[in-house]
């Protein structure tokens, strides 16, 4: 079934807004205004396509730190993202107790992860278990980088979900680098999706720069999982256009030529070209949208800069449930 123009426009907007937010984060870091940023530039098609495939706010998500576009698609606002970068009061993931990009947004069933990688996959299996016990029609999407699929816990989570037929989609975002280490140093198979055959669930590799393909495939798998058909493993391939994080200098492990070559597969540019091709947008429309996105980002930065820091006494709680309001 051909997707509606409206849906394509909406997905493009989320990709665009996330890109401009991400770019501004780099600028803020280089200006010394924020301590840390971890980037998802190049991942937008996979993340937006996957988010739109969910019943957002109904299904669950356990994301990882590169999932800005996924979170923006779920409802994280530009202001909230900027508050988190600056460690300001009212930041929704943690009240600025946790590093930026450890996304959690209870209002849309997105659960934050901790710093050791792959833990979110196990939490997703547990949420899947609860869904099954409560007999709900929901799915959990959990995302991860290809490098983190080397972790024992990732295998434990996938195995557990497969044994118990839990409604979990394991989405691996293979961006060709785990900080500096390429996939062939992480796994002896061509794709993380190949690991599925050893664990007893369906696995497939998809083009992570094609937002519509990702949307269609994840939609189908999500609906199957909601209806008790069990988990699935998907690897979406893309290229990490930026360094790993604001603390990383990627010139030490990859050439500028390689990065430039791969920018041809920038999902934002590919999607843009497609929308023009299909007559959904004109160049002028896209310029206007870009202006709008940039203005929103600027406004969000201003709001966050003017926002207060958390009060000092907030450092003391909530360690235990009795300190959690409305627990």
């Amino acid at each position, binding site marked *: 079934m051909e997707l509606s123009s409206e849906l394509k426009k909406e997905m493009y907007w989320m990709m665009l807004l996330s890109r401009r937010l991400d770019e501004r984060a780099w600028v803020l870091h280089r200006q010394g205004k924020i301590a840390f940023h971890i980037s998802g530039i190049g991942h937008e098609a996979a993340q937006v396509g996957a988010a739109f495939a969910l019943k957002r706010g109904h299904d669950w998500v356990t994301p990882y730190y590169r999932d800005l576009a996924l979170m923006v698609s779920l409802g994280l606002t530009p202001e909230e993202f900027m508050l988190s970068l600056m460690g300001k009061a009212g930041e929704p993931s943690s009240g600025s107790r946790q590093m930026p990009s450890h996304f959690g947004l*209870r209002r849309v069933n997105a659960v934050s992860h901790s710093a050791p990688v792959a833990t979110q996959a196990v939490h997703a299996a547990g949420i899947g278990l609860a869904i099954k016990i409560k007999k709900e029609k929901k799915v959990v999407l959990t995302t991860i980088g290809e490098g983190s699929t080397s972790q024992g816990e990732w295998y434990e989570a996938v195995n557990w979900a497969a044994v118990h037929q839990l409604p979990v989609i394991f989405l691996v975002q293979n961006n060709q680098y785990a900080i500096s280490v390429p996939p062939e140093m992480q796994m002896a198979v061509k794709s993380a999706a190949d690991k599925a055959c050893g664990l007893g669930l369906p696995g497939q590799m998809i083009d992570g720069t094609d937002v519509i393909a990702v949307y269609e495939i994840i939609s189908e798998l999500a609906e199957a999982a909601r209806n008790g058909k069990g988990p699935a493993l998907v690897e979406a391939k893309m290229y990490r256009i930026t360094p790993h994080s604001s603390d990383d200098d990627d010139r030490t492990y990859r050439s500028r030529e390689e990065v430039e070559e791969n920018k041809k597969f920038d999902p934002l540019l590919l999607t843009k070209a497609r929308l023009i091709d299909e007559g959904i947008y004109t160049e002028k429309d896209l310029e206007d949208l870009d202006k709008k996105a940039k203005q929103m980002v600027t406004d969000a930065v201003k709001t966050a800069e003017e926002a207060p820091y958390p009060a000092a006494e907030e450092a003391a709680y909530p360690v235990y449930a009795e300190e959690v309001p409305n*627990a």
Partner: protein
Amino acid sequence: MAKITMRQAISQALWEEMERDPKVFILGQEVGVWGGTYAVTKGFYDHFGADRVRDTPISEAAIIGSAIGAAIAGTRPVAELMTINFAFSAMDHIVNQSAKMHYMFNGQMVLPLVIRTVGGGGRQLGATHSQTPDAIFAHFPGLKVVAPGTPADAKGLLKAAIRSNDPIMFIEHATLYQIRGEVPDGDYIVPIGKSTVQRSGDHVTIVTYSKMLELSLKAAEQLAKDGIEAEIVDLRTLRPLDMEPVIESFKKTNRAVIVEEGWKSFGVGAEISAQIYEHAFDYVDAPIKRVAQKEVPLPYNRNLEQMALPQVEDIIKAVKEVL
């Protein structure tokens, strides 16, 4: 009130809580069809079904990690780790995740999670089946650590733990399952974070918990024959630690011996004695003594194992030294 074993008391608490609240479920290795490694969940599988008494793969990280996920999603998991020694395979989920989630995510969710596990030596199970690493878990803010020494406390504290919204390490002792004691029927709750006086006396304060309570009570009986009356404070919960009964007792006796099964270095005794010095320095009449396990991995051979574990005689000797 009935006289039952610690195993029955724990089993009763679990059963009653599962009957009371359909959100409570059990997961772990061998908990279902087999009825649990220590037979605590015997009969549960047939009564509550496979969904609520779930046999898991041999994946400690997945057991605790998925219990965390299930707790976040609105259930109340009781995860069983076959022994506390295997908790180290799930350590990331226990300390980096469960202990920190309320704080790190600013109370967006609560984590009603009980980790039932078994610690302690004395069954000739060797170095990696016999540890008492309770103090390690008590080190982390965000966790609660409970270790009962009587059947009544086991029942009351486990019921409190299952109803709590915090992640709780509930540490049972491998050699206490057979001990018997009076246990109130029905809805009996012992609040978490309350120490209690198990024996009154005026001459010395013995601070202890779990298996070492049994040994301390035996030591006190023998000391009484020499006219020495020991007061025994049972901590029951290591975190949050209730020092009030300890300090109150110490102000009366001015002497203390702390008895723990784990290693002395950086252990429970170190914490308790430091707090006594902090809160009751003016009442100290003798240096505080600690009785603990020898600083070796626990050996398999029975004689060697018993040499390494604290004994009743060690407690009596320490008490006589502080008097």
